[in-house]
């Protein structure tokens, strides 16, 4: 033990970033921890096959935080007096509690055994960093997630139970133990930040997640594997007050866990307004019996352009309302959101502008986009804004069975806030509830068509959720009043365009 009497550091996290093993000054806490180890307990656990860090974790009174984390394995071995045994056998045995996780021993996904040389977390961090870089994400912060096999906590429980049995009421038994998961995070977090060259303050939350998943190699090789039946039996036994340790609780572990590293970026969002100029393009991908309906979809045209720019895995399209495949979306356009899953990079506003231009200048001119931009968490509020008060404006080409008269124009224009009752239209009755919905037609205007008395353009502004086609042709009398009933004749809708979707913003 060294003679330094350094004051114990209050803030453990800041102290030992990147500290190398050996030759470093140990703070007082670490010395105390070393002194407090119960030698017989240590020897006991060593002989069972528990690794040095787990012993330190389980037997000290002090919490296994980053001070203790930076103590190298060889120093630990020195403290615990297991040095001789180690020198004798070159093969390091895998810890029966943490299955090699805290020893930085694992198999990669090609089943190759990996043993970290530098045993202070930085070697492990470097290995992880390589895999993270391979996945190609751009990020300036990360959140570390660790997933471990459930047997590790079972192993720990079994060992603690054994210790309680043998060393009941020792001080070090009573203190709260840092879990293997948290211990790993403490060991790896700072070296990983350094290895990834991240500047800036640590933040608790980040939208970029690095997940370390340790999974069992195979049932037999990792001992202490309970079947579900055994687990249930043990749980009920514990509930009933009796403690049950299985016949041979501390079998040797032959294979470490398999470690895979996955990175995931939380979804990013883009907003804008779209126009639909074609009467043969659906809003979202529409496939019936393996056949596509319509020649394209707004979703695929826009999403398909943004996804490659983000190098994402997939996208979702959300729109503020929808229109039929044969209805054009004109005027100020309809607000939409594109959600991109696991994007590797975030395109610049310039790239977005280029994407917008590419869509707008495309040969076929099926769809148009405006105001395409990156948007943050306020995106949902934007979509929901004014939903209930949303008014929509349309232009419908209408045919009536008798000639249009001047009176008709006047009587229609004078109808303000007309209330109509719409039974669920037959064309959607198969998938919607049979209800009667009251809706309001805010205003209407007839525009005559030169040289034709049976056709006219009907401009109207209605409440959100109004079925316009049914308002014109009456849906066999299930929408009342209808254009036909108002004009006292038959009316048919030839085509429909959406001319405005009013939202809270303009």
């Amino acid at each position: 033990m060294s003679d330094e009497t350094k004051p114990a550091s209050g803030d453990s996290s800041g102290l030992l970033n990147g500290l190398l093993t050996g030759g470093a000054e140990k703070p007082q806490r670490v010395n105390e921890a070393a002194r407090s180890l119960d030698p017989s307990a240590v020897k006991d656990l060593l002989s069972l096959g528990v690794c040095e860090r787990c012993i330190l974790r389980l037997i000290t009174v002090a919490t296994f935080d980053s001070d203790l984390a930076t103590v190298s394995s060889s120093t630990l071995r020195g403290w615990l007096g297991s040095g001789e045994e180690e020198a004798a056998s070159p093969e390091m045995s895998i810890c029966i509690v943490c299955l090699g996780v805290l020893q930085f021993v694992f198999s990669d996904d090609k089943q190759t055994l990996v043993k970290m040389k530098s045993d202070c977390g930085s070697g492990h961090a470097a290995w992880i960093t390589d895999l993270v870089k391979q996945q190609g994400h751009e990020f300036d912060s990360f959140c570390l997630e660790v997933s471990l096999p459930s047997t590790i906590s079972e192993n720990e429980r079994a060992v603690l139970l054994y210790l309680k049995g043998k060393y009941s009421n020792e001080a070090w038994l009573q203190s709260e133990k840092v879990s293997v998961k948290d211990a790993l995070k403490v060991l790896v977090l700072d070296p990983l930040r350094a290895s990834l060259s991240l500047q800036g303050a640590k933040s608790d939350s980040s939208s970029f997640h690095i997940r370390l998943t340790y999974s069992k190699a195979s049932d037999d090789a990792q001992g202490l594997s309970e079947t579900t039946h055994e687990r249930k039996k043990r749980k009920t036994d514990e509930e009933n007050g009796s403690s049950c340790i299985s016949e041979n609780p501390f079998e040797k572990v032959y294979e470490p866990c398999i470690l895979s590293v996955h990175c995931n970026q939380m979804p990013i969002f883009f907003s804008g307004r779209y126009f639909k100029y074609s009467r043969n393009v659906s809003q979202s991908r529409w496939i019936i019996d393996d056949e596509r309906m319509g020649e394209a979809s707004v979703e695929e045209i826009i999403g398909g352009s943004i996804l490659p720019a983000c190098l994402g895995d997939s996208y979702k399209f959300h729109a503020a309302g929808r229109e039929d495949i044969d209805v054009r979306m004109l005027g100020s356009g309809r607000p939409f959101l594109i959600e991109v899953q696991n994007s590797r990079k975030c395109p610049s506003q310039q790239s977005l502008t280029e994407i917008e231009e590419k869509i707008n200048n495309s040969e076929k001119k099926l769809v148009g986009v405006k105001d395409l931009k990156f948007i943050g968490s306020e995106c949902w509020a934007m979509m929901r804004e004014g939903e209930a008060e949303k008014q929509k404006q349309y232009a419908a080409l209408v045919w009536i069975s008798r000639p249009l008269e001047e009176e008709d124009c006047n009587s229609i224009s004078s109808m303000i806030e007309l209330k109509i009752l719409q039974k669920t239209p037959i064309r959607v009755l198969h998938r919607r509830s049979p209800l009667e919905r009251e809706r309001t037609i805010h205003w209407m205007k007839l525009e005559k068509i030169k040289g034709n008395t049976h056709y006219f353009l009907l401009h109207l502004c209605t409440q959100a959720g109004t079925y316009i086609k049914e308002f014109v042709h009456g849906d066999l009398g299930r929408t009342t009043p209808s254009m036909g009933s108002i004009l006292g004749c038959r009316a048919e809708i030839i085509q429909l365009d959406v001319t405005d979707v009013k939202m809270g913003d303009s």
Partner: protein
Amino acid sequence: MEETQNIDVTKNPEAEDAIESTKQKQSEEVEHHCDEQQKQSQCEEDELRKLLLSDIGELPLSPPSAIQVNFVSYFITGFTKPGHDQYIYRHANGLCVIGLAPTHIAFKDQGGITNIDFNVGKSDRSVLKVSGKRKKNAMRSESNTALCKVSTANDSYIVRCCVKGSLLEVNERLIKQPQLLNSSADREGYIAIIMPRPADWTKNKESLITLEEYKEKKQDILLEPCLL
């Protein structure tokens, strides 16, 4: 001070002009900006009008009706009794609208149909309450299940489902306005909407005839082709 200024200004009329013209320019700019905005929205409106009007294609004298566009018409003649001709309009989504075909013998009676009663069979069809997307509580019908009874001055006739499926709704407006059956049996005078299962429809279809077949069969009776 003012005097001096005045003198200065008068001494230098060009400066005055310059000041004046700057002021004018500024207010012009503001107006211009407003104009620009107005111009732009006017421009957008014009664009919109162009799009709306340019898309108006041929305007046939009598365009196909919503029913002709969205439904396939089937007929069944002499269903359970001679002269009991009915139509079945089937939508692309599988729903079937049932009604009296123009050649139904009820229309031959003097004064046409005067009354309709949905209380036939075991229950009153007009009080069924179907709810939800899954169409809970819909009455399951066979093709010969009675839908309603229509009466004329002379006689009454049973109208049947013709299609096996779930009865989603009956046209209860007919109760107060039975004359709809006389004026527009093929539209507002429809009788019911039934949802058959795909397998049941495939079987059912075999006993139905198409519009063309119906026209041929009944050409002697059908005097008003525009009804179809």
